């Protein structure tokens, strides 16, 4: 399927990661961005892939992000799909990478929303060409929280719900100050938006389209191939992969992700 799309010269969309704490305003913002992006260019198509945590007990998930997004009825250039994380660490489902690859052939921008709980920022950075951390207006001391760990990873930061006023600007300034400490010398874009009033959203749209992006989704195949091997073939599989020279070499040798999968399945006799 991918091969056929590639042969047909399908588009190569940009994968935009959006992460942040529960309730940060990610879905509402992504919905608003998507609607504006397609409205701004007649040929442009945008997809949203939203990953929701699954219950560790029942395995079921509430795919709730859709609730926040209202696309104009019957607009074929907008697509929304939910995915259950199904117990994966990092909140990025096992198949997210593959789904993304497919979507990038069909859409110009592919948003991937994940709930930011520690690990997942790391995973989303691997899937996406460019990752945004959404920070809701926080009360007083909580702003300090922002320092640890996650400050290094995202390509840009967005303070959401700017319409609430004072707490939003306090968060914005505190974040800017901590960024100066955490990433000295780096010009990390910092946005302040309100999905409710639309303030700052167009500027963010522009930056999403033009901001520096990673090497494209294919370049990250090795990481996800290794994850796939671990999930499908367990520790033995990983050992075998290492013995074969590691994921990057294996994918390269077999000419792509799917081909590598098929080859590996064949080797271990699955």
């Amino acid at each position, binding site marked *: 399927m991918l091969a056929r799309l590639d042969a047909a010269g399908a588009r190569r969309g940009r994968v935009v990661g959006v992460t942040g704490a529960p*309730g940060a305003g990610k879905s509402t913002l992504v919905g608003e961005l998507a609607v504006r992006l397609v409205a701004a260019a007649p040929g442009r198509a945008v997809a949203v892939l939203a990953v929701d945590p*699954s*219950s560790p*007990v*029942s*395995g*079921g*998930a*509430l*795919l*709730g992000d*859709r*609730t*926040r997004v*209202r*696309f104009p*009825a*019957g607009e074929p250039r907008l*697509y*929304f*799909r*939910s995915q*259950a994380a*199904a117990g994966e660490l990092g909140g990025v489902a096992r198949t997210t990478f593959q789904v993304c690859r497919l979507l990038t052939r069909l859409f110009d921008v592919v948003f991937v929303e994940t709930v930011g709980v520690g690990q997942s920022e790391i995973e989303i950075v691997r899937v996406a060409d460019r990752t945004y951390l959404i920070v809701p207006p926080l009360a007083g001391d909580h702003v300090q929280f922002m320092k640890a760990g996650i400050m290094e990873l995202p390509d840009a930061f967005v303070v959401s719900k700017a319409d609430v006023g004072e707490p939003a600007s306090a968060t914005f300034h505190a974040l800017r100050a901590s960024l100066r400490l955490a990433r000295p010398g780096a010009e990390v874009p910092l946005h302040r938006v309100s999905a*409710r009033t639309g303030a700052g959203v167009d500027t963010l749209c522009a930056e999403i389209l033009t901001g520096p992006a990673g090497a494209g989704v294919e370049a990250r195949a090795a990481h996800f191939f290794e994850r796939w091997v671990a999930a499908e073939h367990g520790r033995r599989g990983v050992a075998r992969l290492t013995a074969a020279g590691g994921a990057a070499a294996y994918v390269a040798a077999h000419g792509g992700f799917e081909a590598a999968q098929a080859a590996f399945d064949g080797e271990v006799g699955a």
Partner: protein
Amino acid sequence: MSDQPPHVLVGKDGAPAPDRPWIFRTYAGHSSPRASNQLYRANLEQGQTGLSIAFDLPTQCGYSSDDPVARPEVGKVGVPINSLDDFHVLFEGIPLDRMNTSMTINGTAMWLLALYVALARERGVPETALKGTTQNDIVKEYLARGTYIFPPEHSLRLVAETYEYCVDHVPEWNPSNICSYHLQEAGATPLQEVAFALANAIGILDLLRERGRIDDERFARCVGRISFFVNAGIRFVEEMCKMRAFGALWDDICRDRYGITNPKYRLFRYGVQVNSLGLTESQPENNAWRILLEALGVTLSRNARCRALQLPTWNEAMSLPRPWDQQWSLRLQQILAFETDLLEYPDLFDGSPVVASKVAAICDGARGEIDRILAMGGVRGAIDAGYMKSQLVRSMADRMASINRGDQVVVGVNRWTDGLPSPLVGGDDGGVFRVDPAAVEEAMTALAATRARRDAGRVRDALARLEAAARSGDNLMEPSIECALARVTTGEWANALRGVFGEYRALTGIDGQTLDLAPDRLATLRARIDGFAAAHGHRPRLVVGKPGLDGHSNGAEVIAVAARHAGFDVVYSGIRLTPDEIVASAVEEDADLIGVSILSGSHLELTDQLMATLRRHGAEIPVVLGGIVPRDDVAELQARGVAQVFTPADYQLIDVVDRMMDVIEARR
């Protein structure tokens, strides 16, 4: 001082004098202004002493009858009001200056009040003579009832402006009525009911004070105008104590928070509709006893007796009441007030240590909860954070689980379920009310006539003035009254404000909820679902949808939580979606099943729309439907393509999810 013994109630002159009874109300309205007018006049002749108007969902949600989203719901659950012309018909022969009119209207409350004032002006009745209540409690709409339109801050502004207008122009009007009734119907415990309602009242009064548009004297009168609409459940002793707790807490709040010195303004004035959530579809005749017991909770204690009472009917879980059903419930009130000796005594419970202690416990718990909400920034903050909604869904899920386990006894549902057939449902109509479709056509014709007759220039100017005021922050009452006089329609009024304020979708509250169900049965069901996931490479996906304007969310929420708890992946986007939006979600999400929940009585029309949309998408996703479905309609729905129909009798959630699995696997 009177020299009568303590058990004798005395009047001002010291002579024995029984109390006057509370106001008897019947919540009513359907089909068309003309049909409803006839109903009201008949009820008033029957001895009913006030009017309580039910509006249809388009009117409540700000759509005119000829709007496509309105069409399936016109006249179904209340009367459609499109313009002032409709109000003239609705109140024909009813003297406005002598009527106490209560309107269950929220999202469009300011508009309906403007229509009422405009009607008075055209009839030459002074505004100051108008008495009544617009429900106008928007906070509980976000939490429980669903007929909100604009984002909270704009909706609250409309509420505040009705107070600011009425305090000078319609001084005997209750601009809003804080409803905890609906909170209990959405699952609230007595403690939550008290706390959320009082926090809500505080939210409105704080806002009025912050806005600073009225002076202290007027503010005090606004405090005095705050009235409440409370629920009374089947645990009637606790409910009686709840009413006393409400009164005590309200008195404290008015005195301490707002410095109100006049005790008259601190009085907890309340009306009641007794609990309907506990009224069952199975053995519906039992509901008559439930209603009676619930009525006792709010009438027994003189110091906490309601001002007005409206009762549901025995067939509550089947359909809207027929006129006879309403008459039967009205008779209950008449017997209670006039045959019994209830009104001859002073308070029966003053001095009871049991009651005092129970009241204190409710007060303590409620104070803690109110403080928690205030710490979140009051009701507005708590709406945005989803706190109160999620607490309600939590309570509702607990209630359902406890009925499922049999811990909470519901006679005829989970105990003593075998019984003789009820003759009440044996009649030609099966005990069910049906709206006459011809009456709806009448409403449409009237709307067309209004549009044809009115002065287009005056309409344009009135709407422009309304919009300008919405932007500038001027009080919107006078511009709304001018709209009413100009024959602007309900949809036009709301659309003008939608253009300025935008629209809103509230949180669903189902995130993170679980159910405490029988572990062994749950394990069997989960194993079945895991088996499906293993065989098909994904968990069963369910899109739960609420098409149309219906705001009854309990059923959809409970089903969404139950399905997820059992191992489904669930999409539930909340109330008021179009069939188009639901089908689009299901197609994009590659759903295995669509489950719609419809309690508004529009299940046939909405099913047709849904099926047509599915066909248009070429999607072959099976559909199940749940809600209030009269028995005769079940086969009809199946004939129109619904795979399974669920009603309140299907209260065992594990069975419901199991049957959904049957439908999914039958298609595979």
